[in-house]
């Protein structure tokens, strides 16, 4: 139920006076309500749950997962 999937905002549009985004998930594009992520724009990755963006992925925090491994001398192939 709390399943939420990250996707990339490719266009911002309006529906019934609300801010929506066209969001791309592995080739499929869906319209997603951006009212709860008003700062999200094109190129941002948002986490989508039942048609709503509930978070914008923090790229710096995401990168930290991998730099931590590199600092510990782990294989570079892990680099996404």
């Amino acid at each position, binding site marked *: *139920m709390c*399943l939420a999937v990250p996707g990339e905002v490719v266009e911002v549009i309006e529906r019934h006076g609300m801010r929506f985004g066209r969001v791309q998930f592995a080739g499929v594009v869906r319209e997603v309500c951006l*009212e*709860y992520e008003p700062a999200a724009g094109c190129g941002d990755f948002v986490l989508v749950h*039942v*048609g709503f963006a509930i978070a914008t*992925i923090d790229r710096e925090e995401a990168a930290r997962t991998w730099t931590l491994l590199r600092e510990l001398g782990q294989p570079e192939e892990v680099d*996404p």
Partner: protein
Amino acid sequence: MNYLDEYRDAKACAIRLGWIREAVTRPHVIMEVCGGQTHAILRYGLDRMLPRELELVHGPGCPVCVTALETIDRAHAIAATPGVLFASFGDMLRVPGSRTDLLASRARGADVRVVYSPLDALELARANPDRRVVFFAIGFETTAPANAMALIQARRGRVDNFSMLASHVLVPPAIASILQSPDNRVEAFLGPGHVCAITGIGAYESLAARFHVPIAITGFEPVDLLDGVLAVVRQLERGTATVENVYRRTVSADGNRAACAALAEVFDVTARSWRGIGAIPRSGYRINEAYRAHDAERVFDVGEIVTREPEACVSGLVLRGVKKPSDCPAFGNRCTPQTPLGATMVSAEGACAAYYQHGRRPRDGEPA
């Protein structure tokens, strides 16, 4: 980079498993709160890769499983009302009520539609002004803001034929209830990452301090789950009990303020009865007075609801982490996803369905 596949990387998982093995010196029981986490753990076989000392038990984070029987029976009664178009997430359709399920109601002529989003249900109401459209709004804090927005839009756009049967549940009171239970075995929690994306982590800091229990706010991919296990194992070994956020790319300490504002606009906190668990004070949301015209519970008088659990089933003990699905004598024989005795076998997030789907079935009389 799509913020998904890289968190399924086998090497990154292997490195973390090594760190976990180094950290563990004695047995620990850890509960993952969310049904989505349970499914990922079983799907990727993480439970079988972890050191034997670590036992993962599966939490109550399956909204379909914990929705009260009374609410499900009410949904069936409303769906059977002439002129009603009843919209629901697909998961709810096969959940057994006292007498029937929504799929069987549909077969008998009720107009039951599956929607992906509450805004789709609102669209149905706009497109069918002569029908009364009711959306079955269940879910945790993750889902509640979406349902709140549908109500805000219905009121703003005067979509008077739209209402909602709301039965939202809240995670922190359920964790407190598990920890207060005399048969509790859980020593640490993998906290619900997507719930916390909405609410922030404050309530979990209070739980960690009050019950001296480590909590790692955790995501849903294998790397995320192992990060969560590593964080709580290190704490259990050290004897500390704090909240660690290992899902920082998604969860901020304060959560999503716009979503929380919408929740406050539409809902009041209320006591809820959790199926299989019982009543928990201040553990849910109900639609507030200002939105009463869109509250299906008040709009539809369906008379007194007399509930009857279809058959004794251990789902309550499974939902509290006291029993594993494979401990149940009905599991995998009398109770399967095709013939479910309880909601934990129906929902895509239920622990029993996860065990069944991912091959944790008893074979030849052996325990799973």
